[in-house]
């Protein structure tokens, strides 16, 4: 399988704090990779680096063969034609209609005829079950509809790479299941390579070809759904069984944090 995404030895910091610690990851062409982990595990930071929004301390990130840690602005712009992102909160422009929001990437990256762009955007609204609602403003949509509109915008250019941040967060189980089905269809029909960041176990197990489990900035395990379920790693099992962390406490360090000493 050809790698659509190749991360090698990625180290990142926020200030002096180590966030990602020598992370390595490959996502194959046409593969759905789910990145899982608890809060503070580094999964959102990893996503931001995959999108080229942050510069790492060291390491390389190749998207479709292009190393984005060294890519020029022009190279990144060209690469973004092949990338779609659906952010957790939707990130739609509130002053534009849903249709205008979905058409934005086409206006930014193509010189297609206006009618062609409008048909493409309306088709993608049909795909996400928002057909005929393009005239609405984002403020007139429910949480689930905003997620779907954001997904329509993310896929309007038929990207080779689709990144999806917390597709199920805040959604009822039915809408969440529909989004999962849609992600599977996108892989199968459009041959997209898809990275989904989530902490929803049910969703992860349903859609993943493989799962990467992050914990404290390190990859605990990358494997198939069965491999993750059957892992003997205690932290993986804690995450799967929603058990709280049983960490050793360094009394001196803890007191220093509390007293500011």
């Amino acid at each position: 399988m050809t790698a659509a995404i190749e991360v090698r030895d990625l180290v990142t910091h926020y200030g002096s704090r180590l966030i990602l610690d020598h992370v390595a990851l490959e996502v194959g062409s046409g593969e759905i990779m789910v990145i899982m982990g608890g809060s503070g595990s580094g999964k959102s930071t990893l996503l931001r680096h995959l999108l080229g929004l942050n510069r790492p301390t060291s390491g390389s990130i190749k998207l479709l063969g292009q190393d984005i840690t060294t890519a020029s602005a022009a190279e990144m712009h060209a690469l973004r034609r092949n990338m779609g992102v659906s952010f957790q909160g939707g990130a739609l422009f509130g002053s534009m209609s849903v249709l205008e929001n979905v058409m934005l990437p086409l206006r930014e990256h193509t010189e297609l005829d206006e009618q062609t762009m409008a048909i493409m955007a309306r088709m993608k609204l049909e795909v996400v079950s928002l057909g005929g609602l393009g005239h609405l403003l984002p403020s007139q949509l429910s949480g689930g509809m905003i997620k779907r509109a954001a997904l329509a915008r993310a896929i309007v250019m038929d990207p080779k790479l689709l990144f999806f941040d917390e597709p199920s967060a805040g959604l009822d189980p039915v809408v969440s299941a529909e989004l999962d089905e849609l992600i599977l269809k996108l892989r199968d029909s459009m041959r997209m390579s898809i990275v989904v960041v989530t902490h929803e176990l049910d969703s992860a197990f349903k859609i993943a070809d493989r799962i990467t489990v992050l914990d404290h900035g390190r990859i605990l395990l990358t494997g198939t759904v069965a491999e993750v379920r059957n892992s003997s790693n205690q932290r993986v099992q804690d995450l799967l069984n929603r058990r709280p962390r049983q960490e050793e406490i360094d009394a001196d360090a803890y007191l220093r944090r509390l007293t500011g000493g």
Partner: protein
Amino acid sequence: MSYQVQQESGYAIVCLSGDVDLSCSPEARKTILASLSRGQHTLVDLSAVSYIDSSGVASLVEGFQTARRKSLRFGLIGVSAAALGVLELARLDKVFPIHATLAARLEADG
């Protein structure tokens, strides 16, 4: 992508081949709309299409809508599995008249 147009059994048949994507779908659109603007019943043959993206499908949609406005016959023939998957995603397989071959289309025309 490459294309050719041939006349057969009262139809202009636009045969597309290769990848129909953002870089060439405007040409496919122009060809389909030109055929319809000449008042010709038009079929688009997709049997040699290895990939078609949304911009290509949008050209087919616009062609179909234009044909309906002009009361001309329009349809797709030889839709490859790759193209069918893209059409199915937007449920357009239930919208376009789709036939395996020209002969099948002619039979359906009666």
